[in-house]
């Protein structure tokens, strides 16, 4: 990969990670999901996804297709937390450290981002196990589900599907965010 393409890739994936975590943390916000804000975040995610794709295409067929087994340490990218912030404390709504977020990726038994189960239309529900078991994409926060009081954490059965390939993840988030309103 060329240097610039790699940078663009890294940047696009980082922005995607930040956006996804913003969407997740917005769900626990007082007052509920804000349509305007969710729309803007999903627009950013779309652009980041497009940039990532066009950057990969521009490097030609020599670049590996993004298979789940591809070592996800390209560019020595750190998993998730947003890049160093020169500005002081983020505003109240910003993505909190991921310990606060209720949703897991790795512990999801059926590999879905289950956002709004009640409001999913039948066409949306896809319980297919996706892809091959793989390590979590490096841009996703490594975190675990927040437990309700009294709940116990169960070990994920070995060999269970870990996480979807990240493009499907993005697509899933984009397709779910707005219709959930």
């Amino acid at each position, binding site marked *: 990969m060329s240097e610039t393409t790699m940078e663009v890739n890294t*940047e696009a994936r980082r*922005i995607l990670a*930040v956006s996804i975590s*913003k969407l997740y943390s917005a769900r626990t916000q*007082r*007052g*509920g999901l*804000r*349509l*305007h*804000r969710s*729309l*803007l975040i999903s*627009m*950013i995610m779309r*652009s*980041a996804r497009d*940039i990532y794709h066009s950057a990969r295409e521009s490097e030609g067929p020599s670049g590996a297709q993004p298979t789940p087994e591809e070592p996800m340490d390209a560019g020595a990218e750190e998993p998730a937390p*947003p*890049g160093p*912030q*020169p*500005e*002081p*404390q*983020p*505003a*109240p*709504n*910003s*993505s909190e450290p991921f310990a606060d977020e209720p949703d897991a990726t790795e512990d999801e038994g059926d590999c879905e981002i289950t956002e709004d189960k009640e409001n999913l239309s039948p066409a949306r529900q896809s319980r297919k196990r996706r892809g091959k078991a793989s390590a979590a994409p490096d841009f996703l926060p490594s975190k675990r589900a927040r437990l309700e009081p009294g709940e116990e954490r169960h070990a994920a059965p070995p060999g269970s599907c870990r996480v979807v390939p990240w493009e499907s993840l993005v697509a899933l988030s984009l*397709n779910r965010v*707005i*219709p959930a*309103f």
Partner: protein
Amino acid sequence: MAGPGGDMQWCFSQVKGAIDDDVAEADIISTVEFNHTGELLATGDKGGRVVIFQQEIENKNQPQFRSEYNVYSTFQSHEPEFDYLKSLEIEEKINKIRWLPQKNAAQFLLSTNDKTIKLWKISERDKRPEGYNLKEDDGRYKDPNTITSLRVPVLIPMDLMVEASPRRVFANAHTYHINSISVNSDNETYLSADDLRINLWHLEITDRSFNIVDIKPANMEELTEVITAAEFHPHQCNTFVYSSSKGTIRLCDMRASALCDKHSKLFEEPEDPSNRSFFSEIISSISDVKFSHNGRYMMTRDYLSMKIWDLNMENRPVETYQVHEYLRSKLCSLYENDCIFDKFECCWNGNDSVVMTGSYNNFFRMFDRGHRRDVTLEASRENSKPMQVLKPRKVCAGGKRKKDEISVDSLDFNKKILHTAWHPQDNIIAVATTNNLYIFQDKVN
């Protein structure tokens, strides 16, 4: 009004609110609004309270009069609620306050949170009745057998009491979050706007409203823009505008049809390709729209700029003012810390010659339209000695920083001025920092 904008010297007048740095979330000011005479100044906060200040004028006839705003009334407008059907909490934060023009001794204002609008009556009581025949003075009923004569009750003076009472509650009309309310010039109707719909209400009727704009797509996956602000024209009772997250403004005429989905005018400026960036779509979202007092222009605020539009020209604004262009290269960081979602408001002065808006680091900006001058000022406790003149501030975008300049990286993005208001007649401004309200006055005035 004395003097063009550039000659104005702004002085500190007052600051309201707690001094300590530890800001209670409920105290965060969420809206500021002068009434039509400027005598009253209302603020709403995140805790659902409304505080009204009243102007007490010393020596108004003198050329350099000093006006002071003191607390007139405080009341809890909205409480937190829970929508059981959707399992959602409804915040009590006051999104907007709009005053009604005064018709009698009492004052009326509309205040709204995300879902419910309320009409409040604020009235003064400075007399109380005494000498009832059937009741004691403390309200207990007398034993009728003890009454031997009749007398006429009299009104006797008492200490001024200001009472706020909710007269109307306009609820259950908005699925999405209300972002604007605007009273019509007919003084009978008003509009409320949420992300996808605008409703028209009659001030007397609470159990129904008319939907006049609906941009909800049949398939929500196709949603590309939302309504961000709406306002009635100051004189034409049939005209209103609404702005969108795509940077467009639509002017609608209610005479054309009941449902104003088709705009009469669409104001949109073609995007400057040289400014195109990854975030340019979202920074074009308009956060506020305000008509000029004379009704000929309207002003819009997006993340980096303010634009003034002539209502007769749709294809581009007549004036554009950069508020903090030095932030354009920082958009990625501002996205990460959520500042890019901040919704700044803007306002006109009384004669539409100067416009004002807020920025970060507790800076606020004024643009003198006629003299093409602008100034950056700061609301801070350090500059709050009585009548202290505010020194213009300057942000150094890059290169060598001069003395007294502040570099972009030193700006405090937690200190933001989102809400400002200008007295309708005089050069008095109210500027809200996170939890303090600053009142500044032009020295000459």
